[in-house]
């Protein structure tokens, strides 16, 4: 079963395409990291998935149906975690209970208690982290099959970030739900996600299980060489050269046997950075300096 399936999905705001030609099929049971620089289309994709936006082109199916119809089975945490400033935490839980037939009141009040929050407190007085926790509580206590989180940790300090993600992983383990969470920082997601979607410039650049992605990407170092002379099976993502040495990030499904190369594994963050720098020349130079 797929939790998210898109075909040729595109969304245009006036003349600007926020998302174009997006074809994805995300299987159930994963924690999916939706990564990309600011403005890459992450929020647009998630908004399309909960029906807040309608596609300009293509189709999107969530849990096998139209996004608006699947809302009772989808938990959504919008960017900046909007809550009603004038309503208390208890009011927010009542809000969740009244608007969702599958509401788990015990789970919700447990979470509020565990977070050490006063139910009588007005949501407007919460800190950024507490607000994100409250919004996550609303999304999780709905008992969804799919949880969509838009930049949930962007406004949090590093400690709150770690706590939030830990908390999220506990909820995931308890409820066996699929999660898609977006961030413009790979480091945030590296520890929690086992599936990656990389959006760059409104297009999907990379999508797949993290272990598979890591297994098919290699960092090759060897004597200086023109990348065009490499075998076709190696897809070069980035190349950098010094006077005597060439460093390549390549994608291949078969092992690299050429003894001229020393092959090393690549981390998820480096992998993502490589794809990002591939798009802009300026990014490539920056990467070369780093190497």
């Amino acid at each position, binding site marked *: 079963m797929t939790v998210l399936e898109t075909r040729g999905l595109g969304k245009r705001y006036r003349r600007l395409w926020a998302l174009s030609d997006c074809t994805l099929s995300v299987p159930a049971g994963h924690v999916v990291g939706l990564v990309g620089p600011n403005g890459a289309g992450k929020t647009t994709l998630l*908004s399309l998935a909960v029906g807040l936006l*309608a596609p300009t082109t293509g189709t999107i199916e969530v849990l096998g149906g139209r996004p*608006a119809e699947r809302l*009772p089975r989808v938990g959504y945490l919008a960017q*900046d975690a909007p809550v009603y400033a004038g309503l208390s935490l208890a009011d927010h839980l009542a809000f969740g209970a*009244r*608007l969702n037939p599958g509401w788990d009141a015990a789970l919700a009040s447990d979470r509020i208690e565990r977070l050490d929050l006063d139910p009588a407190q007005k949501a407007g007085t919460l800190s950024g982290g507490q607000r994100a926790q409250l*919004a996550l509580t609303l999304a999780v206590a709905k008992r969804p099959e799919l949880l969509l989180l838009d930049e949930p940790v962007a406004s949090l300090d590093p400690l709150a970030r770690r706590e939030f993600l830990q908390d999220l992983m506990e909820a995931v383990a308890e409820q066996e739900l699929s999660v898609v969470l977006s961030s413009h920082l790979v480091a945030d997601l590296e520890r929690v996600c086992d599936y990656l979607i990389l959006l760059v410039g409104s297009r999907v650049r990379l999508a797949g299980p993290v272990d598979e992605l890591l297994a098919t990407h290699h960092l090759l170092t060897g004597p200086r060489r023109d990348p065009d002379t490499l075998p076709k099976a190696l897809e070069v993502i980035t190349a950098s050269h010094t006077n005597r040495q060439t460093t390549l990030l390549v994608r291949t499904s078969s092992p690299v046997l050429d003894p001229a190369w020393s092959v090393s594994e690549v981390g998820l963050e480096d992998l993502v950075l490589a794809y990002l720098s591939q798009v802009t020349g300026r990014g490539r130079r920056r990467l070369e300096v780093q190497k």
Partner: protein
Amino acid sequence: MIWLTWRQFRAQAITAAAVLVVFAVLLAVTGPHLASLYAASGIAGCHGSSCGQLASSFVGRLQAAGPYPALDVLSIAVIILTPAMIGVFWGAPLIARELETGTFRLAWTQSVSRARWLAVKLGLVGLAAMALTEGLSLMQAWWAAPLGRAVGYGAGGSLLAAGRFAPAVFASHGITPLGYAAFAFVLGAATGVLIRHAIPAMAVTLAIFAVVQIAVPLWIRPHLIPADHVVAPLSLVQTSLVGVTSPDNLSFPADGLLSEPGAWILSSGPVTSAGQPVITPPAACGVGRGVNLDLLAGCLARQGVRESISYQPVSRFWALQWVETAIYLILALALAWYCFWRVDRRLA
């Protein structure tokens, strides 16, 4: 959804209840005394021409002293301003605030569809708006009933005893307050959907509603039902000829020429026997300063000059109320449809 609507509307509902209670207490305390003054005036048991005099002296006494003129003006002002306040403070922020603060992304991603969310909000708050305004109107109508009866006997002319067609009276009595409340509320909501910011939406709502409320009595209400026309001989009511104030400016008090009092005179002016409007007195009647006005009037009547009057008879009060209210309700429905269309299809 009903709970959420109530929870978000609670503060406004309490304000509205407070206004309603203060209004009710003020009228309930003064109303019986006003009714007793009316009973003591003897109008109830009057006969023939004495009725008009009794009614006029009753209104005259109220006018001279006591809180009643001020209370009448104040209560009518409250009824007329209430729909505007509802549009500004209930309607405009209803959806605009959710769009402005981003909470629409929370509200519209629960298990309740957007259409239902909007239907319950517009429906419940809209009904509250109509109930509040009509409640105020009914209370005022009860309180002002003695004044209305005095006007019915011909005690017109003053602010306290304005006729039923006076713009402020027409707009604050009967069923029109229902239409205004519904229209103002949905106008506010629709403006909020369009502008997406509460404060500008509030200002625009107030401006549009004010323009509509001024334009309708001036240009639209007179023509909701085709007006009646009558050409009355000047001799019909002799006293009316006193109304000729200057030979250069011929005008007659038209209501005295109609068979039933209380009509809404839309336009009136003297015409010749051929139906041509008379702008200056015919030469035969002599022109120039120092002309005796009574003689001039008699001369005009002999020349066949008559008064042409275009008017809505008093019996059309309810018909005009229904037509105007229906128009406002239809506008409210159209704006509500726009809100649904935008919220369900266009926005995010």
